[in-house]
């Protein structure tokens, strides 16, 4: 990738006998939102913290904005903004003071007021951190990543534990970072988040990257079908031979078909019903999601 801001080659990290990151390679283009999607323990956070210069890799190479993380971790930290998963704050400082303090750790910070307005924390500007709600703390956490005005921002599960409304708000903020030309690398275990927000997604499981591409491409490649499902009350058909259907199975009394041409498949089903050959209800047509991709690739669900 020519315009890569991050390039990772054969990154390897182990904790004792446990291999957390197993020879992972990827690169991230300048200006994109890159997601690392996977269940807890997949190695997402370790990968991120290695790129942030917080952990030393045991093997492989990671170049962040032209700097080898292993050679100069502090140089890397000067060019990035980091939001850590579950990290605490100095409870007795206010929002403004916290951002002033973290701004002082960087050579050319953004004005505190800018960071506050970007994260919609104006109302809580003078509130002590200990009084903030979960969503507000999370926004403050993202604000501390933004305060250094970095070209590259790392967000480790930025929306975990937020209610749907707060999550959508934060998505807008993160999409705004991309609009300003910043690059964002985030981890998540919400496939909806990856699908809606990310230009490209790496699906990670057991320390390896199982697949990596734009969400739409991943879905097209790994679950090339749309799901058509129905409850058959009477009669039936040779579902596998209907137009477009790749395979069919019965799950909990429900016939589930995977089809490349949902319009044709549904049309054929309706024809059979009108002809009186079968009687069904609750017809569902579902686009595949990253969840299906994940299931297809790893054999298990994202959250179990």
């Amino acid at each position, binding site marked *: 990738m020519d315009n890569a801001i991050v390039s990772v080659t054969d990154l390897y990290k182990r904790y004792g006998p446990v291999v957390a990151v197993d020879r992972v390679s990827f690169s991230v283009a300048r200006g994109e939102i890159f997601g690392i999607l996977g269940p807890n323990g997949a190695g997402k956070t370790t990968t991120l913290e290695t790129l942030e210069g917080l952990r030393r890799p045991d093997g492989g190479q990671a170049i962040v904005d032209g700097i080898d993380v292993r050679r100069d971790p502090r140089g890397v930290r000067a060019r990035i903004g980091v939001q*850590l998963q579950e*990290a*605490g704050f*100095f409870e007795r400082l206010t929002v403004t003071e916290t951002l002033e*303090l973290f701004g*002082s*750790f960087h050579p050319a910070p953004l004005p505190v007021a800018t960071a506050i307005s970007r994260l919609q924390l104006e109302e809580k500007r003078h509130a002590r951190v200990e009084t903030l709600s979960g969503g507000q703390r999370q926004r403050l956490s993202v604000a501390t990543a933004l305060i*250094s005005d970095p070209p590259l921002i790392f967000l480790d599960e930025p929306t975990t534990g937020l209610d749907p409304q707060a999550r959508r708000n934060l998505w807008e903020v993160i999409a705004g970072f991309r609009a300003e030309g910043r690059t964002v690398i985030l981890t998540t275990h919400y496939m909806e988040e990856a699908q809606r927000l990310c230009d490209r997604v790496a699906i990670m499981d057991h320390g390896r990257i199982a697949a990596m591409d734009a969400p739409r491409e991943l879905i097209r490649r790994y679950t090339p079908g749309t799901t058509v499902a129905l409850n058959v009350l009477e009669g039936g058909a040779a579902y596998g031979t209907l137009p477009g259907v790749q395979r069919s199975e019965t799950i909990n009394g429900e016939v589930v078909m995977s089809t490349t041409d949902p319009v044709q498949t549904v049309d054929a089903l309706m024809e059979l019903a009108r002809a009186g050959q079968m009687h069904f209800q609750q017809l569902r047509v579902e686009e595949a999601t990253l969840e299906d991709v994940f299931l297809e690739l790893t054999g298990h669900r994202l959250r179990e």
Partner: protein
Amino acid sequence: MTIVMGFRMYVRDRSSLFWGMAFPLILMGLIGLAFGRSESLTFRVAFVNPDNPLGVALREGLGQVPVFTMSDVPTEAEAVELLRKGQRILVIIVPPFGSTDPLRVFYDQARDQESRTALVILERFVAEANLRIAGVDPAVRIEATGVAGAQETRFFDFLLPGILAMTVMQTGLQGVTWVVTGYRERLILKRVLATPVRPFVFLTGLVARYAVTNIVQLGVIVLIGVAVFHARIVGSLGMLAAVALFGALAFVGIGFAVSTWSKTPESANLLGSVISFPMLFLAGTLWPREFMPAFMQPVISLLPLTPLVEAMRGIATRGDTVMPYLAGLAYLGLWGGVTFALAAWRFKWE
């Protein structure tokens, strides 16, 4: 910035305000209540005189003895009762008019030394009275001249520098351990590590914050100590502050080292207490170290708190310069340096 924010956090933290300022002052007040009586030397004497004119003259004379606080009690039984309760040290019973019986004196055996001193003063007073009544000029006389050698040290003068030294130690062993392990446990240190700031710079800021807050704390304790407890500081305040600052740095080092051995703030605090409390009681902080048995003295000399207490007390109560205490302070500095190195080596961010 770290220092400024640290100071703000400190001011907003009620518990650290309590431990840093209120607790030392309360302790000072309580110890003052317990031991402060010996501060001014007076003996409370009960005087029982039925009707003897000689007794009246005696009473008048005794009333002028500055160390005696006289009170008249009607009957012997009541006076002895007061003695038993420990409310008087001597009871003087004047014989009835015309009797040649001696003056009878009861003294408090429980406070042997004090009552013997009071008896000696009374005997000397009676001897003088006898000479006067006999009209004889004493052949041998004493002319006593007070020489202001070491300034008289009152109890609070003695206590205040000890309390200050204790506060310095507590900041390191209780404050630093609590805060550093707390920051680590809540991953605040990790958040700082994720910025380009050099860990060394941040930790130095943290240490400087403790040094600043310590001096402020000590200032408040000195002010209240002087205003409320009438403690006096003879020596140079600047020198005292400099020594306190030096001690604060050394104990912050020890506190950092302790915090590398504990995962949670609670266990760090406990470990800090285990180290600080024996030192507090042994090192001559609240009472002279000579109160401790002789076999403990070599151990006491090894404690890092001891040289700090001695230097601060020397400066505060005797107006010494720092010179005689340099060796002891160097020893304390060694503690600070070694523990800092140990802490730097063992320090973990998360």
